[in-house]
C-alpha cells in the first residue's frame, strides 16, 4: 500500500512539473483541475453527468455480461452452436466500435436504447469468447456426478457450472468494465445530451483541457472505487474455497 501511494505521488509531481513545462493551457496543474471539479460539484452538474454515465455503464455492462456469458456457455458446450455462431462472433469482434455506434444511432435513433445497445454489442463478443473457453474446460466428472444425483437445472448452474466459470467471468468483468466505460464516452460524445462524454465534447469545442480533466479524472476514480469495493470483494468471496498459499 505505501508503494502504491508513493507511485501515485510521483505521478502527481510529474503532472505538476509537466504543467510548468507545457504551460497551463495545454496541461493545467492538479490544483486548477481540482478547483473546477469543486465548482462543478457545487453546481450539481458533476453528479448529474457522472450519474448518467455510470447508469449507462452499468446497464450496458450487465446486458453484455448476461447475454455474452449465456452465448459463450452455449458455444462452449455445443459443437453445433459453436460452428454456427463462431463466424458471427468473429465479424462482431472485428467490427470497429464506431461503426456499431453510428449504425445503431442511424437505425434505432438518437436515444438511450441505441446508446446502451451499441455499447453492449461492442462488449458482448469479448465476454462470449472468454466464457466459451471456460465452458470448454468444464469438468466432465462433476457433470456426470450432477447427472447421477439428478441435480436440477438451477442447482447445476449455481453449484456446478458457475463456480467453474468464475475465473473466466472475473476476467471478462475486469476487461469489460474498462472497455465499456471507454465506449460509453464515445456514445455520449456522438449522440447524448449529458454524461462525461458529452462534457468532454464540450470541453473539446472550447479547447478547455481543465474541464476535460475535471470530468475524466473523477470518473476514473469512480471506476477504481467500483473495482476495489465491489469487484474485488466478490472475487475474494467466490474464491474463498481455494486453499491459501502457505
Amino acid at each position, binding site marked *: 500500500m505505501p508503494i502504491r501511494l508513493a507511485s501515485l505521488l510521483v505521478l502527481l509531481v510529474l503532472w505538476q512539473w509537466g504543467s510548468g513545462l507545457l504551460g497551463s493551457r495545454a496541461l493545467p496543474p492538479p490544483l486548477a483541475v481540482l478547483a473546477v471539479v469543486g465548482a462543478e460539484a457545487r453546481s450539481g452538474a458533476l453528479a448529474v453527468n457522472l450519474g448518467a454515465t455510470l447508469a449507462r455503464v452499468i446497464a450496458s455492462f450487465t446486458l453484455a455480461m448476461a447475454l455474452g456469458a449465456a452465448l459463450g456457455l452455449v458455444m462452449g458446450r455445443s459443437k453445433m452452436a459453436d460452428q454456427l455462431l463462431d463466424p458471427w462472433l468473429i465479424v462482431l469482434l472485428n467490427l470497429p466500435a464506431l461503426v456499431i455506434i453510428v449504425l445503431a444511432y442511424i437505425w434505432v435513433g438518437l436515444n438511450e436504447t441505441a446508446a446502451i445497445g451499441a455499447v453492449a454489442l461492442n462488449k458482448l463478443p469479448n465476454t462470449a469468447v472468454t466464457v466459451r473457453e471456460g465452458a470448454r474446460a468444464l469438468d466432465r*466428472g462433476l457433470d*456426470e456426478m450432477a447427472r447421477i444425483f439428478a441435480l436440477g437445472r438451477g442447482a447445476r448452474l449455481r453449484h456446478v457450472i458457475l463456480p467453474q466459470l*468464475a475465473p473466466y467471468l472475473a476476467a471478462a468483468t475486469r476487461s469489460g468494465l474498462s472497455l465499456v466505460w471507454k465506449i460509453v464516452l464515445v456514445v455520449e460524445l456522438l449522440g447524448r445530451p449529458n454524461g462525461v462524454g458529452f462534457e468532454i465534447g464540450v470541453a473539446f469545442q472550447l479547447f478547455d483541457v481543465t474541464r476535460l480533466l475535471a470530468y475524466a479524472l473523477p470518473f476514473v476514480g469512480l471506476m477504481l472505487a467500483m473495482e476495489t469495493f465491489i469487484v474485488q470483494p466478490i472475487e475474494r468471496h467466490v474464491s474463498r*474455497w481455494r486453499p491459501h498459499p502457505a
Partner: protein
Amino acid sequence: MSPAGGRTLLEVAVALKTRRAVSGESRVVLRDVGFSLGEGEVCALLGPSGCGKTTLLRLIAGLDKEFEGAVTLPARRRIGMVFQEPRLLPWRSVAENLRIAGAPPGKDLDAIVATLGLAGHLDHFPGELSLGLARRVAIARAFAIAPDLLILDEPFASLDAILARRLRTELTSLVERLRSTTLIVTHDVDEAISLADRIVVLSPAPGRVIADRRIETPRLALTPEAAADIRAELAAMMAAAHGG
C-alpha cells in the same frame, strides 16, 4: 442377510459394447454380460483391470447409452454412486456437498456422517481434506440420498491398506443398516468376499460373465476358513476361464 428372493431391481443384458480408439479402430469392451439384482442384494463385480468393469457401471448408471442391449431399472429410482475419484464440488463445504446432492437433513444423515467419522469436517472444503476423508464424503453422499441402487466403483483404490480396511468395515456397517441394493466393483477378491453376498466375475477383456457365486453365510458371520474356501473356488473359476 438380504436374500435374493426380493423383487428384481436391476436387470443387465448387454449384448455388445465397443469403444473406438483414437486410431479409429473399434475394440470390443463387453460381450454378452447378463445378470440381475434383487432388491437388497449386495453384489460385487470382480474382474482383472481393464476388463470393462467401470464401463459396465457407466452403462448401468445411464452415463453411457451407446451399446447394444438393455439395462432395466425402475422408472422412478434414485442412484447413489461413488466414483473412483471423490468428485466433490471443491467450492462447497462438505455439508453443502451432501445437501446439494439431495441428502435430506435429519437423523439418518447424522448417523451416516457419524459412522464415517465426518462430524468434525462438515464445515471444511474438500481441498482441505485428505484423500481418505474425501472418499468418505463421497460415500456419505451416495448413502445419504437413500438410493434404490448404490453403485461403488473401486471406492478404496489408492488408499493404504489399513485405511482401506477401516473404510471397508464402515461401508459394511452402513450397507447392513440401510439395506440398499448395492453393486460394488473391485479387482480385490478379499474385498468382494467381505462385502458382498453375491459375486459376479468378469473375464479379461472383452468382459463376459464367467462366474456368478452366492455367499450364503451372513457377511458378519463369515469365518476366515469359509472365506478362504470361497477364495480358492473363485480362483479356480478364473483360472479355468483364462485357460479356456
